[in-house]
């Protein structure tokens, strides 16, 4: 899986920086907590820009190359920012059998973007994801933390309209 590296310049607020430093201070005694630190950093910034990866490496006293290695290995770590509304369509088996590919196609068509990318106004980002464990509701998609189940392609426009 190739990850897109953001070309957007990185900026952080003093609040973000303070939270980030606190996370490093709490975890730097234990190198095995690297992933946990990266997860918290992503919580703070929404993604892992290279500036932050380098600061994690320095803080945890591990090579920057290792941080980058972990960031690119796991699907959850994002190297580019997400849209305001992050859509993920489940392509797990149960959802796929019940037509989630068509739902995903319809969203791509409606927003004019491909999975793994973000609309130009940074409003919606779209991803296809692995089973979210809600197979009883198949096919399923999530927009931020909101779950939409038993979807058909016809539902797409109405749901997206709610986020206008």
């Amino acid at each position, binding site marked *: *899986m190739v990850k897109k590296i953001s070309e957007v310049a990185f900026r952080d607020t003093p609040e973000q920086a303070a939270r980030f430093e606190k996370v490093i201070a709490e975890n730097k005694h234990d*190198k*095995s*907590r*690297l*992933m*946990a630190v*990266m*997860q918290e950093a992503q919580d703070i910034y929404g993604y892992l820009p290279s500036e932050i990866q380098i600061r994690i490496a320095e803080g945890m006293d591990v090579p920057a190359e*290792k941080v980058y*290695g*972990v960031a690119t*290995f*796991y*699907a*959850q*770590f994002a190297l580019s920012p997400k849209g305001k509304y992050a859509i993920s369509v489940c*392509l*797990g*088996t*149960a959802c*796929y*059998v*019940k037509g989630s590919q068509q739902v995903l196609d319809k969203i791509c068509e409606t927003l004019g973007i491909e999975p793994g990318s973000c609309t130009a106004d940074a409003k919606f980002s779209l991803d296809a994801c*692995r*089973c*979210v*464990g*809600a*197979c*009883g509701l*198949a096919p399923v998609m999530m927009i931020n933390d909101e779950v939409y189940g038993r979807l058909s392609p016809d539902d797409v426009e109405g749901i997206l309209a709610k986020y206008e």
Partner: protein
Amino acid sequence: MAEAINNEAARHTSLEATSFYKAQCRVALRNCGVIDPESIDEYIAMDGYAALGKALTEMTPEQVIQEVIDSGLRGRGGGGFPTGKKWSFTAANKADQKYVVCNADEGDPGAFMDRSVLEGDPHCIIEAMELCGYATGATEGYVYVRAEYPIAVKRLTKAIEDAKAYGLLGKDIFGTGFNFDLHIRLGAGAFVCGEETALMTSIEGNRGEPRPRPPYPAVKGLFAKPTTENNVETFANVPQIILRGASFFNSMGTERSKGTKVFALGGKINNTGLVEVPMGTTLRQIVEDVGGGVPNGKKFKAAQTGGPSGGCIPASMIDIEIDYDNLVSQGAMMGSGGLIVMDEDTCMVDIAKFFLNFTVDESCGKCTPCRVGTRRLYEILEKITSGNGTLEDLDRMEELCKYIKDNSLCGLGQTAPNPVLSTYTRFKDEYIAHVVEKRCPAGVCKALMRITIDPDKCRGCTACARVCPVGAISGTVKQPHEIDQTKCIKCGACMEKCRFGAISKK
């Protein structure tokens, strides 16, 4: 009057009497949906931590292991390795520190039993891990939960805090001098981390790549110390085995697969959800009785078990008794218990391609047979479903499958070709139809699909021609229209628009 009473009785039928529950027998899921998962008191009221008390005060570690061996419990994560034996291997190794690991990185698409146990009964996992720790001599445990399960993480975190506050976890448990501490680690969306050695590598804070075995985890596992790793559902059975004895558990099931198994029933079936049935229940019972059959009057075609590592059981084998060995002998596997039902509208080549796409994405890239082999295999399937496949491709596909199985480093690669091999063995005619006749019998593969207008039914209303996004439909008003197959993108918009049912795909 009698009739009135009968009606009354019919209306008050208990849940257990409904066909969905009748065949079920809940051991691993016994508390799920019954108790408040955030209340340790409710768990204790259901005999919670009684098994731990019994083990610590009345049993030696050897007796605990013997009880688990006698119960016949096998690993519920997929492989089916005898759990008691696994524990005895770790117990036999001397070390200053040993670990217990709970694998809650439930990644098989279509399986969600571990999520349900963690969210519905988190204390039973804590209790079971402590029992394992006592039996094997470990004093520390890790639960590796996938990050997609935030509620499971929240409830487990609270359960650990509560258990510590009650003195049921931590130092000197039940005043016996037994210490056990538990940590939670979150996954980050890598399927391969469900493989035991990859999972341990990930807990250590690395890229979750598998390690060659030997040395096995029982000798050199987490942080290079002897480690016992079991799946959530496996652990969920343990407290009941210790509390009620091995005979309670081994009285259920088949000769070589004891107890119950939770299946995540999904796909083209009326009742979806988790079902827990004794081992040896037939597929027919699960699909027809518990699952309520296939919706919309469609025909049952196959059930897929074991996710991307498993295979398909065709309709002709519907009376198979489901246990570890029967499934393997049919080219499928138990896996973690995803059971996806497919009807006649499912293309088996497309399904195989779907699973391969998954493994191509999730292959960690450490070993070549899996990294390159699965991609080449996917390309062959892509060629077949796009109508460019040849009979030689089918031979090469089979050969490649065997090569990947034999040469991959870990379970992911070794089982990745199973969905292809199993559909190819069971539904060879569908592969042949794609290759020779350039036809997809289920009408799924777009490249092979043809949308046509029946000239006898077409009234020439032009609705289809107006809706077609690529202008592939031509014809004059009140005359039958025609679709130019070279332009058609098979979007189906015309079919939806036609009021006379004149347009069909095949």
